[in-house]
């Protein structure tokens, strides 16, 4: 009897315990080294170019309608002359226990077999629930169908949908690039190997602060970096189990400012 119970419990838990997705083929993970990041925002422009993000203008920026799937948050602490500035790039954390996925009434956002939190545009009806539930404020809503002044539209990436009014969107870990890598790998009859997939932000980062890869592959660069003693995840106490791992900034902070628990 207890055997059956344990089995049942295991079965149930296998869907609830973070990390259960190790049984899948890939577990895409991003590692961001905050000691390398210098806040230059090259990643932000790379994301705009790769993912067809519209430019909304000053007025819409003012009412938080700016479309940046990745943003650099910076914190200024201390008083002159002992001022410390800290940068952190924040994009969708692709949580394994994602709050947004619970909220969607039409299953437009869900977890896929690679550990990605994905958004299906043609299912989305724009209830805004996911953005409300999101812990990291990374979801962006299309309040309008944005237009590009001609001929700027010639730059648009044909591999990525141009979203329309009423649809929620967010960082996809450049899934179009993952697909190209998988496509090539399949042609060559192998698995996607480390370095095949570069997200746009990682590719542009001049200080090499961002690394992307498969956590299921023990020899990948991310797997090695993920073991760093400087590792932490964003707001980990909320148990969202993010797929983005940050490496702590090396810095002498004054006592009383910030905290380095974790």
């Amino acid at each position, binding site marked *: 009897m207890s055997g059956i119970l344990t089995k049942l419990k295991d079965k149930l838990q296998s869907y609830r315990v973070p990390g259960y997705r190790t049984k899948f083929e890939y577990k895409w993970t991003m590692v961001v080294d905050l000691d390398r990041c210098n806040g230059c925002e090259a990643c932000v422009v790379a994301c705009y170019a790769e993912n067809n993000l519209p430019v909304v203008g000053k007025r819409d920026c003012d009412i938080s309608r700016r479309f940046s799937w990745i943003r650099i948050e910076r914190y200024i602490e201390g008083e002159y002359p002992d001022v410390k500035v800290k940068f952190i790039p924040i994009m969708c954390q692709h949580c394994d226990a994602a709050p947004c996925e619970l909220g969607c009434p039409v299953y437009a956002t869900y977890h*896929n077999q690679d550990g990605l939190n994905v958004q299906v545009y043609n299912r989305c009806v724009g209830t805004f629930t996911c953005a409300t539930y999101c812990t990291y404020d990374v979801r962006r809503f299309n309040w309008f169908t944005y237009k590009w002044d001609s001929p700027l539209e010639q730059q648009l990436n044909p591999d*990525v949908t141009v979203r329309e009014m009423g649809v929620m969107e967010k960082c996809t870990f450049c899934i179009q690039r993952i697909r190209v890598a998988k496509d090539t790998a399949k042609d060559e009859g192998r698995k996607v190997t480390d370095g095949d997939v570069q997200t746009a932000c990682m590719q542009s980062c001049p200080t090499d602060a961002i690394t992307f890869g498969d956590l299921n592959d023990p020899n990948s660069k991310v797997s090695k970096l993920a073991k760093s003693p400087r590792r932490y995840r964003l707001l980990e106490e909320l148990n969202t189990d993010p797929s983005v791992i940050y490496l702590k900034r090396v810095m002498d902070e004054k006592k009383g400012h910030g905290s380095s628990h974790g």
Partner: protein
Amino acid sequence: MKNLIVNFIILVIFVVTLGVGYLIADQYIGRAPEQPINFSHKIHAGTNEIPCMYCHIYAERAKVSGAPNVQRCMGCHKIIKTESPEIKKLAGYWERQEPIPWIKVHNLPDHVDFTHKRHIKAGRKCQECHGPVETMDRVTRVASLKMGWCLKCHAKYNVKNGRECWTCHI
């Protein structure tokens, strides 16, 4: 008075459904638009047994199969059957150095990221989706190209991640 109202409602329903019918026509009736040149797949692919990918050159390598380039047409028709009126039309395009404005028969809805390459590499025959093109004088769409139709086939061949949204929708 009551009759008037009823007739009015009937009229309204008629007009509304007429509009709806107009809009959804493409989804239910096999599309067979008239093309600028009366090209016959029956003659080329059927009688003469030219392989599909001799003309649709990108099908194995890219998302799109590619409408045959005009040069490819002229490659044969410089010599073959040059006096036929349809070939003369073709020659006209070539002389003017204009591409032929073919009409799309198989037009996928937005949001679908379909790739010919993976389907060909998986060993699917062109005819499984496009029907017996080699018997058609004018190409008619035989499949609805709706998601249910796609998924039926994905289920049949037990496609890996075949029911995953982001396999087709980016």
